[in-house]
C-alpha cells in the first residue's frame, strides 16, 4: 500500500513538473519590459520559497534534537535526521537560487553579481548551511549532532532577514512581488503559471526531502550496528 502511495506521489510530482514547465514556457506571456528572461522567475522564486520551507524543517528538527536528546534518544535521532534532510535539501534549492539569480541579473542589470542586501544575505544563508553540512560530514564525536543543531538554529535566524532584506533596504534586487508595497503583485496570466511551478517544486522538494530522511535513518541504523559490532569484537 505504501509503495503504491509513493509511486502515485512520484507520478503526480513528475506530471506537475511537466505541467509547470509547459505553463512557464507556452502559457505565460513574455514580460513587457524584460521579455523572455522574465521566465526565470518561474524557477527562481519557487526555489527560494521552497528553500526557506526546508530550512524551517531543519530548524524544527534541530530544536527537536536538543529537546529530546536526554529524555528520548530515539526521538532525538528522528529529529536529527529531519534537521539534516531539511538543511541539505534547503541548500540544494538555495544553490539553484544563487545560480539562476545571477543568470537573470546578467541580462536584466548587465552584471552577474552585486553586494545588494538580498543577494548578500542569501549568500550568507547558503554559507551557514554549507558549514552545517561540512560540520556534519567532517566532525566526529558525540557532540557533533549538538553542535550541528545549534548551528542549524542560528542559521535559520537568517531566513527572516533574507525575506525582509528587500523590504528593509531598497537595493538593486527587485522589490517584493508578493506582500510588497501597494500595487505589487502579478498579472493573472503570469500568476497561474507561477503557482503551478510553486506547487510542482514544492512537491519535488518534499519527495527528495523524504528520500534524504530515509537515507539518513538508514545511516543511523548502520552506524548503530557498526558500534554494536565494535563493542562485541
Amino acid at each position, binding site marked *: 500500500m505504501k509503495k503504491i502511495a509513493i509511486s502515485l506521489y512520484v507520478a503526480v510530482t513528475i506530471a506537475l513538473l511537466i505541467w509547470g514547465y509547459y505553463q512557464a514556457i507556452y502559457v505565460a506571456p513574455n514580460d513587457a519590459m524584460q521579455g523572455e528572461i522574465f521566465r526565470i522567475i518561474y524557477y527562481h522564486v519557487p*526555489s527560494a520559497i521552497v528553500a526557506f520551507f526546508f530550512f524551517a524543517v531543519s530548524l524544527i528538527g534541530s530544536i527537536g534534537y536538543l529537546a529530546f536528546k536526554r529524555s528520548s534518544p530515539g526521538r532525538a535521532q528522528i529529529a536529527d535526521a529531519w534537521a539534516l534532510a531539511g538543511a541539505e535539501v534547503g541548500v540544494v534549492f538555495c544553490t*539553484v537560487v544563487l545560480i539562476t539569480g545571477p543568470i537573470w541579473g546578467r541580462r536584466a542589470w548587465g552584471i552577474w553579481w552585486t553586494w545588494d542586501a538580498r543577494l548578500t544575505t542569501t549568500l550568507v544563508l547558503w554559507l551557514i548551511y554549507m558549514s552545517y553540512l561540512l560540520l556534519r560530514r567532517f566532525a566526529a564525536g558525540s557532540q557533533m549532532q549538538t553542535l550541528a543543531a545549534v548551528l542549524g538554529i542560528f542559521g535559520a535566524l537568517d531566513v527572516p532577514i533574507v525575506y525582509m532584506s528587500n523590504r528593509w533596504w531598497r537595493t538593486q534586487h527587485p522589490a517584493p512581488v508578493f506582500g510588497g508595497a501597494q500595487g505589487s503583485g502579478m498579472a493573472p496570466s503570469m500568476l497561474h503559471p507561477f503557482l503551478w511551478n510553486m506547487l510542482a517544486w514544492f512537491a519535488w522538494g518534499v519527495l527528495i526531502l523524504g528520500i534524504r530522511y530515509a*537515507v539518513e535513518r538508514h545511516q543511523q541504523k548502520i552506524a548503530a550496528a557498526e558500534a554494536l559490532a565494535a563493542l562485541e569484537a
Partner: protein
Amino acid sequence: MDQAAILDHQFRIAAYVVTWTIQLGYVAWLAMKWRAQKREAERLGIDRPKTLR
C-alpha cells in the same frame, strides 16, 4: 528574432538547464548513497529501517 531576444532565450535555457542539473545531480548522489548503504547493510546483516518498509 533580434540579438537581445536570442540572448534572453539562451540565458533562460541556461537557467533552466542549471536548475535541472543541480536537482537531478542531487537525486543521483542520493541514489548512489542509497546503494552503498544497501551493500553496507547486507554486509552487517541488518534489515532496512521501519521507515523504509
